[in-house]
């Protein structure tokens, strides 16, 4: 038993010695020289170290992706706003409903402007009718005023589309109240007094000349 143990110890000792010798022999073998060119590697390393230190590197890296993301977001938000925004009041009237309401220009204008024509709406008007009225083309007076002032073209167009060109009012009386005629009238007290004095002077000269 003792012999066995000692022989085992001898073997393991021999083995250890063998192993260390093998280790030493293996360490004496050298790996083949590196195929990387040392100079070019050090050049690349120098360049890489400068790249990491360069200021604003992170900013430059993320600048374009961030700009793209922001512009895309803006486009999406604007699209949503465009789709979901309420319809404007002066939107063009649907031609089918306009034709249905158009019988004759005079009659249709009368129904469209109850206050001017002195008529009242029927009591059985529903919410849909109210909505139609809200979107209805302008009344004759409004159209005449807009025609005279030359503003609010879309509303005037909806009027023409609804009632036809013949339904447009005569522009002559409107021109009498046009801003051009109003421009001649005095606006301030001083101008009013001056106009009165001028009138009085004119009357005096006419009476003198007559006398």
């Amino acid at each position, binding site marked *: 038993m003792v012999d066995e143990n000692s022989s085992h110890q001898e073997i393991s000792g021999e083995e250890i010695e063998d192993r260390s010798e093998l280790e030493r022999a293996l360490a004496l073998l050298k790996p083949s020289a*590196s195929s990387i060119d040392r100079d070019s590697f050090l050049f690349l390393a120098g360049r890489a170290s400068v790249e990491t230190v360069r200021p604003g590197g992170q900013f430059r890296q993320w600048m374009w992706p961030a700009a793209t993301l922001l512009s895309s977001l803006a486009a999406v938000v604007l699209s949503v706003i465009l789709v979901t925004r309420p319809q404007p009041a002066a939107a063009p009237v649907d031609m089918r409903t306009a034709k249905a309401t158009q019988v004759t220009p005079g009659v249709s204008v009368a129904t469209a402007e109850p206050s001017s024509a002195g008529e009242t709406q029927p009591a059985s008007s529903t919410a849909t009718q109210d909505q139609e009225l809200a979107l209805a083309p302008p009344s004759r007076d409004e159209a005449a005023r807009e025609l005279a002032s030359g503003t609010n073209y879309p509303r005037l167009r909806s009027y023409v589309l609804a009632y036809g060109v013949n339904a447009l009012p005569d522009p002559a009386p409107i021109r009498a109240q046009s801003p051009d005629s109003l421009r001649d009238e005095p606006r301030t007290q001083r101008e009013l007094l001056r106009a009165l004095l001028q009138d009085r002077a004119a009357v005096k000269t006419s009476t003198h000349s007559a006398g």
Partner: protein
Amino acid sequence: MSRISPELIARLFDRHAAALELFAAQWIPAPADVVQEAFLKLVRQGRVPDRPAAWLYRVVRNGAISAARRDARRQRNEQTAIGLSRLRLEADGENPLDAELAARALEALPGEKREVVVARIWGGLTFEEIAEFADISSSEAHRRYEAALAVLRKSLGVTWLTKTAATKR
């Protein structure tokens, strides 16, 4: 962690580049790119890791395994160089071991044992450092190393004995 200096990079390169190529050659036939990329990664990192050698071995190991997976299909189609060892070792005149035979014996080892032997003998890493990159305990690294040496001793047995006998004479 301190900042990386050019001197440190040059020193690490001189000390470990060849051994790292031998280490990466276990997985890929052309390991230079992976090794160079590992060094450049260290430079870009800007800070020296606690154990630079272990860090380099870990990066090279991961890079080589990834490259091997990537090129697996291509390698299957290529004609493999039969009879030529991928691990290149060179012997000086006094060494009792034949370099080519030792390289073949090394290649015959299982991968997990071979990487420990290469990192320990030619990389000069401690068992703690080996344990770090191989994700094992240091005792497991030691156990693998001992087992690998035992296998190598058996596989190189005849050559080993004859060469040592000749040297002793």
